[in-house]
């Protein structure tokens, strides 16, 4: 996508808006539209995308809040998802990437979170949402959908220094060799409840954060403040997409 196309997209074009869109506007972000979603393409800087990729490799912060995600709860949930050909992890607090590229996270024996992939390859979230609306709205099968798009903001902290950042905000040991690919922690981040998921972008460490959407700006500011000593900065989705697609 070229700059001309992205420049004219305003985050308010969509009725569904990230709680952080004003922060992005402050940084004069370039937005882009993917399907119904408006996301930050990149922030203005000297070398544009290449610079952001370098930042993301070291320490970057990206807002994914307008990307699709969903969740399900209830005794029947794991079995139902398995019957929909999903690979459901055995252990709670584990994430498993699906062959369709979506990420399925088991939060407890009865609770699952599903995140779409950064390249928009998978339709899993939309499909599951439709299925749930069609089949489970009478709530008599112990499967309950959760409005994860709206209850939680979705951020990504990337780069080899990401764990240094977390050590200033979180009392759980998230260092690379202790908190490996697929690990999940439901914990307190800057005194806010958060789900932290390790899901690397190929060789670049990446941590997804899902946290109460009403506290999104507070958390965003805390993360940026804690990043400053490591020269971390916000990055657009395009940098992450590049890292995710380059094998």
């Amino acid at each position, binding site marked *: 996508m070229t700059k001309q196309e992205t420049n004219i997209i305003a985050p308010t074009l969509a009725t569904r808006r990230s709680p952080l869109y004003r922060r992005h506007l402050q940084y004069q972000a370039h937005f882009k539209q993917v399907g119904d979603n408006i996301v930050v393409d990149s922030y203005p800087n000297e070398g544009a995308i290449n610079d952001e990729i370098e930042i993301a490799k070291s320490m970057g912060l990206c807002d994914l809040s307008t990307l699709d995600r969903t969740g399900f709860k209830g005794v029947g949930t794991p079995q139902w998802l398995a019957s929909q050909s999903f690979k459901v992890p055995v252990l709670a607090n584990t994430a498993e990437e699906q062959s369709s590229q979506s990420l399925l996270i088991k939060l*407890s024996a009865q609770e699952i979170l599903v995140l779409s992939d950064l390249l928009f390859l998978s339709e899993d979230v939309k499909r599951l949402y439709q299925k749930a609306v069609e089949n489970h709205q009478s709530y008599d099968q112990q499967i309950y959908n959760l409005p994860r798009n709206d209850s939680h903001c979705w951020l990504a902290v990337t780069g080899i220094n990401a764990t240094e950042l977390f050590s200033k905000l979180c*009392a759980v040991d998230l260092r690379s060799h202790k908190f490996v690919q697929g690990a999940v922690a439901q*914990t*307190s981040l800057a005194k806010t*409840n958060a789900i932290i998921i390790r899901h690397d972008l190929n060789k670049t460490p990446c941590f997804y954060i899902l946290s109460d959407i009403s506290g999104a700006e507070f958390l965003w500011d805390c993360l940026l403040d804690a990043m400053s000593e490591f020269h971390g900065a916000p990055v657009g989705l395009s940098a992450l997409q590049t890292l995710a697609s380059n094998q």
Partner: protein
Amino acid sequence: MKLLSCPLNGLRNISEFTYGGEYHPTPDHQTTSSRDWAEHVFFHDNTAGIVIEWWCHTPSSFWFLAERNTLTDEVVRTFTPDELYTKSIIQHETKPETTP
């Protein structure tokens, strides 16, 4: 800071948890005596030794129980509520089967 082992999330700082009071089966509202009801609501056993307590892992809203020695502040073990509450309490007459 003390560590507490959550049956779902593992060892975490105690600041991630909310204390939920001592485990105490609720007497039957309709059949219990006034005295026993008052004991249940207003009086605490204040046991010196092993007690069972409710704890909630706040970030995941996960409730569990802990056996704690009030003399040494040592948590002997933690476990999920279904160990004590084995089936759905459908009628108000039904009480949890196990008492410590």
